[in-house]
């Protein structure tokens, strides 16, 4: 589904990703771990198409489409979803309206009929139940006045509505207390599907106690330096990132 080869990405002329390789197939859950500054968020943003992230070398394809020159909305319409580390506020626009417009843009691009307000309301209610968010989320403005935890839960709700093929979650667990982490994790687990893949970008192992990954990758200095199964996350937790640093002297 996602093939990333020798991926090089610059931010403001500084090279952050330096030849990253990653392959993700449908139904798989991949965790990308690594110390601060290793390039985890850069990978997430670059795959989603933020124009501050310049791809200087390598390739990235998603469902056989070249991502490198594709505008972000087209990636979204193909089914690539990014749950933001810092979700943005959009004052004056209700979550329900925002999600209805977004979903309809995607539906339109696939030649499907747009959902009217009533049909969408029904869908939204189902999804809210699925990922366990309270009804008032629908009428509140997008992320405006939301607590940190609420913003992350709102990202999960959006993911549920958009039904992506590939969901990249950028540090969705950061800033969550233990209860919120459990709810968010349940939300993710409820969305697991043989047709859907997840890339969980995370700093800590604790999310992986709740959402069990198939693969764990360690990102360091812009490259994946170690890959393994869930046990790698536990080993990292035990030995700390210094272990990785020692193995990969600068």
């Amino acid at each position, binding site marked *: 589904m996602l093939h990333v080869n020798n991926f090089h990405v610059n931010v403001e002329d500084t090279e952050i990703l330096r030849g990253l390789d990653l392959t993700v197939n449908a139904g798989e859950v991949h965790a990308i771990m690594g110390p601060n500054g290793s390039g985890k968020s850069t990978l997430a943003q670059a795959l*989603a*198409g*933020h*124009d*501050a992230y310049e791809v200087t070398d390598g390739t990235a394809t998603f469902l056989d489409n070249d991502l490198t020159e594709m*505008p*972000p*909305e087209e*990636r*979204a*319409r193909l089914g690539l*979803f*990014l749950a*933001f580390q*810092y*979700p*943005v*506020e*959009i*004052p*004056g*626009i209700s979550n329900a309206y*925002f*999600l209805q*417009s*977004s*979903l309809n*843009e*995607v539906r339109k*691009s696939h030649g499907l009929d747009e959902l009217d307000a009533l049909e969408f309301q029904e869908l939204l209610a189902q999804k809210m139940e699925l990922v366990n968010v309270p009804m008032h989320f629908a009428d509140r*403005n*997008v992320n405006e006045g939301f607590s940190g935890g609420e913003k992350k839960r709102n990202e999960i709700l*959006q993911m549920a509505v*958009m039904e992506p093929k590939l969901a990249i979650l950028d540090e969705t667990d950061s800033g969550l207390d233990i209860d919120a982490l459990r709810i968010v994790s349940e939300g993710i687990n409820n969305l697991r599907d043989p047709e859907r893949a997840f890339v969980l970008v995370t700093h800590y192992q604790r999310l992986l106690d709740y959402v069990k990954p198939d693969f764990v990758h360690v990102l360091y200095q812009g490259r994946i330096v170690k890959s393994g199964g869930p046990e790698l996350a536990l080993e990292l937790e035990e030995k700390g990132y210094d272990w990785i640093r020692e193995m990969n002297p600068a």
Partner: protein
Amino acid sequence: MSSHEIMDSEYTGSRVEQSNQKAAEMANTEYKHGWTTDIDSDTFAPGLNEDVIRALSAKKEEPEWMLEWRLKAYKQWLTMEEPHWLNGDYPKVDYQDVSYYSAPSKKAKYESMDEVPPELLETFEKLGIPLDERKQLAGVAVDAVFDSVSVATTHQDILGKQGIIFCSFSEAVQNHPDLVKQYLSTVVPTNDNFYAALNSAVFTDGSFAFIPKGVKCPMDLSTYFRINQAQTGQFERTLIIAEEGASVNYLEGCTAPQRDENQLHAAVVEIVALDNATVNYSTVQNWYAGDEEGVGGIYNFVTKRGKCQGVNSRISWTQVETGSAITWKYPSCLLIGDNSVGEFYSVAVSNKRQLADTGTKMIHIGKNTKSTVISKTISAGRGQNSYRGLIQVMPKAAHSRSYTQCDSLLIGDQCGAHTFPTIEVKNTTSNVEHEASTSKISEDQLFYCQQRGMSTDDAVSTIINGYCKEVFDHLPMEFAVEASNLLGITLEGSVG
């Protein structure tokens, strides 16, 4: 050429003409009301003097007092100078180069819908305002004004049963002279300002609404202004009177063809609210704005003022200003009655080379009076937006309150937003607040919307709509939808 011949020529019309028209349409797809109506018109030669005013008054078969009133205003106008506080420049308007009267066909007014030429009915239908009895919009009565005359006013019968008068200004002068005489220029004196004086001298038509004591108007009243003829000015005058305990929602829409020269629109709107009366006045202004280089477009120099004369009366202005090359407009409230309330909710957009200089004046005269001002400006392209406001609390306006919020949003780095607030408080028991903010659409907001599947234009329009929500919430539903679509169209492509 008679209108009949024109219709024939449309059928056999030359291909060149058609393809020219097509090309023009394609060159400027964003302004969809830029077409013209081919209709034989009775248009005065450009120029202004006493004889023109006499001729105009005669054309409209006005009584002597109306002519005298016009001539007095004209003499005042001659002694006045064009105001120049506008935050921007424009070539001097040659008032002798404007035609002050233009009416479709030789008839100055239509006795019934049957007399209205089909081209006119088609024109308004194309604008989404069917006047034909069978197709009229339910729930809203419309006075349709084409160039200098009112074409038709719908739903008059239903309104008449409750004693509501809603008709063209010309009809009011003929049929309700006492009401006109009683209220005309009691809110905006003829010598109030240069353009108000000019309007008083040469105004051609407009709308008149009278809601009698205790009546809540059962439907929204609406005036639709269409400029068609080249080189004409449009000078309409609206007078709305809400008697004790009456209430009404009034809507105003306007469009004009796309032309290379600037056209002048100088209207006057007066509102009187007696004890416990409420008037909500909403405008969606979409005059032709001129092109990318600032060629053409309407000069929209308008005086709008409401007088909260009675206790507990309320006048609320809501405006969405997207069109015009230059807008110069300050819908205001005189809060005379104790506990009266004045409100101003405004969205003003300036794109391309547009200049919008708009705001309000809230004059607190009675006790416990209250005013709320919410101004949202959006500047894009090389547009310049200015908020200009005056909050004045007089010595006797004890315990009055006023709240102003001025927000400016900038798109791109060649536009500008400016605020010129003036606050004068002349007693010690009143409370006046003013808040202001300036922001840009952030890259992060755009990317967030795009990541959810929206195009750049849709993302911009979504963010702008959220920004304008506080104002749109005060518009009637169908107007809010139109306003929101219009913003999308106006700002299309403004973020590259």
